[in-house]
């Protein structure tokens, strides 16, 4: 009578094995892309999770599909920080999306060095070369183009004109001592001069980077990175200037814990009129209105002031934009999409609807917003350019700048220590 039991066990074992086989088979099946019907699906990873950009971009993808019936565009959207983390994981797996968001600089270079990014120099001729030179710069690595920009901009002070008037400041300051005076005037008028997102660190880095550009000159930051030496006197001086500012206690209450775009963050603090200024990029007005109420006509823009006796000029620009890169051996459809996205018609639409700055020179006339016009004017007369440090440098060095400047602002590191710790990290990153 033992036989039925035995066969049942045998059956169970067999079915367990069969079950395994099934899962293995379905796992294989899920991987293939279903490209048999003659259509190409291209994956487009971007960070446009906020409106109106999100729907404008989706509509553009549909438009491209309508023009190219054999191509499907699959959009994957991730929030900024999540995207960076996800890309780290993807890069180490060695397979990137067909089209992906990039800021250029050191991060892109790492991906290029790993052999994961398509060289677009020849595949984007001639339309790629006609784009605004300052916008293309972050994606040029060893004189080859690895990305196509869709936005370019710069960091500067966004200020509340009503608060400035109330504090008796007639003109935006153009020198550092003038700026410190303005901060003092705002303080005595009981207005918080500056909003800062201390939790996120990168907004604080802007101050140090701009000050270093003003004291050492626009080329110095890139040169210091290449020489792995940030201990020069101008860099320490930049830290001391920042310390002067911090000493005036110009930031909002609890700024060390503040985020950037949250309802109680830096952008909302300015957007709700609770602080007079923030040092931020061209996207600031959009975020101020999204996270807070927005300042409307009271909002103004002025470039980072010059430092007396420094080697840098007020016309040297710190900033960056956004662009797209392709994975290595991406299909022609992906290149076509980049061309479509960088066409004058698309750029005009992007400028009008999503508040970016034009990368196609001919699309400039589409700018309506006076503040964006002001940024564009500054960009056009720029005499030097430096990409965001956390993108221009290898990630470890960029993060060390963010970290040690944050420590300088919270008072736990001296200007010398900042220069030394950044140098140390730069040296470690061969």
């Amino acid at each position: 009578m033992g036989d039925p039991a035995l066969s049942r066990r045998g059956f169970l074992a067999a079915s367990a094995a069969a079950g395994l086989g099934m899962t293995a088979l379905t796992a294989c099946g899920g991987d293939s892309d279903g490209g048999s019907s003659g259509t190409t699906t291209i994956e487009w990873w971007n960070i446009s999770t906020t409106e109106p950009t999100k729907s404008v971009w989706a509509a553009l993808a549909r438009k491209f599909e309508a023009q190219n019936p054999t191509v499907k565009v699959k959009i994957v959207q991730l929030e900024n920080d999540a995207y960076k983390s996800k890309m780290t994981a993807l890069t180490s797996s060695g397979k990137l999306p067909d089209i992906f968001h990039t800021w250029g600089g050191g991060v892109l270079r790492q991906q290029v060095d790993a052999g994961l990014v398509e060289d677009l120099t020849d595949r984007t001729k001639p339309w790629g070369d006609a784009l605004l030179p300052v916008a293309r710069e972050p994606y040029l690595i060893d004189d080859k183009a690895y990305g196509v920009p869709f936005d370019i901009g710069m960091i500067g002070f966004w200020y509340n004109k009503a608060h400035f008037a109330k504090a008796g400041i007639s003109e935006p300051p153009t020198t550092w001592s003038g700026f410190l005076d303005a901060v003092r005037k705002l303080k005595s008028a009981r207005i918080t001069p500056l909003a800062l997102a201390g939790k996120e660190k990168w907004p604080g880095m802007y101050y140090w980077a701009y000050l270093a550009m003003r004291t050492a000159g626009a080329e110095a930051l890139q040169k210091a990175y290449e020489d792995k030496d940030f201990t020069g006197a101008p860099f320490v001086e930049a830290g001391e200037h920042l310390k002067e500012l911090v000493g005036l206690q110009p930031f909002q209450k609890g700024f060390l814990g503040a985020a950037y775009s949250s309802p109680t963050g830096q952008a909302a603090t300015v957007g709700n009129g609770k602080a007079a200024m923030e040092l931020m990029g061209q996207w600031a007005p959009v975020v101020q209105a999204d996270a807070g109420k927005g300042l409307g006509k009271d909002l103004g823009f002025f470039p980072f002031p010059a430092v007396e006796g420094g080697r840098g000029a007020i016309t040297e620009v710190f900033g960056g934009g956004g662009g797209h890169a392709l994975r290595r051996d991406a299909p022609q459809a992906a290149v076509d999409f980049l061309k479509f996205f960088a066409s004058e018609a698309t750029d005009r639409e992007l400028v009008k609807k999503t508040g970016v700055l034009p990368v196609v020179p001919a699309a400039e006339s589409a700018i309506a917003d006076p503040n964006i016009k002001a940024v564009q004017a500054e960009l056009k007369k720029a005499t030097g350019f430096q990409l965001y440090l956390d993108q221009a440098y290898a990630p470890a060095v960029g993060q060390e700048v963010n970290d040690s400047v944050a420590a300088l602002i919270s008072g736990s590191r001296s200007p010398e220590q900042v220069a030394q710790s950044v140098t140390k990290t730069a040296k470690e990153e061969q």
Partner: protein
Amino acid sequence: MTSTFLPSKQSGPDTGPPPPVADRGRGRARRRTLNWLTATGFQLPALVLFIGLVLLPMLFALYAAFFRWGGFGMPSDYVGGENFTRLFQDEVFLGDLWRCLVLVVLSLALQLPFALAMAVLLNQRMRGRAVYRMLFFAPYVLSEAITGILFGMIFAPDDGFADQVLGRIGLEGLGGEWFADPSTVMATLFLVMMWKYFGFHMMLYLAGLQAVPKELTEAALIDGAGPWQRFRNVTLPLLAPTLRISVFLSVIGSIQLFDLVWVTTAGGPDHHSETMAVTMFQYGFKRYQVGYASAISVAMFAISLVFALAYQRFVLRRDLEGATTTMRGDGK
């Protein structure tokens, strides 16, 4: 003096009826092979997943910890133990260890006693007992990310709920910058942890309390023991296995704390609330120093492992031996 109150029915595995003596050897061997095959067949899927998703990545992290590696391609720049020596010179990591210890001590000294008190309270017959139990347990069900965002808003300086309420009732002095001030950030973080996790420990204790036989408390009552004596000498010793497990979970949880910190402060201001897991994330996913991040994760694993083994060996041994109902006269 040792006295066993309950029959130890559960001690020792059930050995079943003795096998027939005159079984044929061949049949037995065949059945054993089949048994083995069946067992393997059932375990294989889980085993494959466990090896592929847990064991191999762990071994790979251990391997990567000996390299300077940016996360691209395979690690090739062998640096020996450099990443580990760097760990012990890294002020942030040493701070992580200290903060971990602080959290463990605070949890054991405040959170667990509080949870125990609530459990004893809610074990009484009272109106709305189920509602209270559910309310206190609810925070545990919330995800860490939601909790973090919620308390980020509650503890926003000036505009947040906490400061507003304190201001309204005339206690502005108690308000402050909460997460934004290096000197208060750990206390605030612990407050949130306590809010979130005490309900879980309370539930554990409640379950433990249900298992305390009423007869014992009644007997103690008849012997003239007061409420404190009954708690101290009857309830507490019988609850000890649950307490030991809850301490274990609490310590392991503190060692691996990540989500809550990441969402509320991201480790700031100026590293004052950073934990080992946050530091590891910073190096792995922000700085792309995956080799060093792996070393941190290996250190975390080692600390957890050493603690878990030591705890099992020295503290949980009694429980694991099935001596849960053995009670010593003086409760020691």
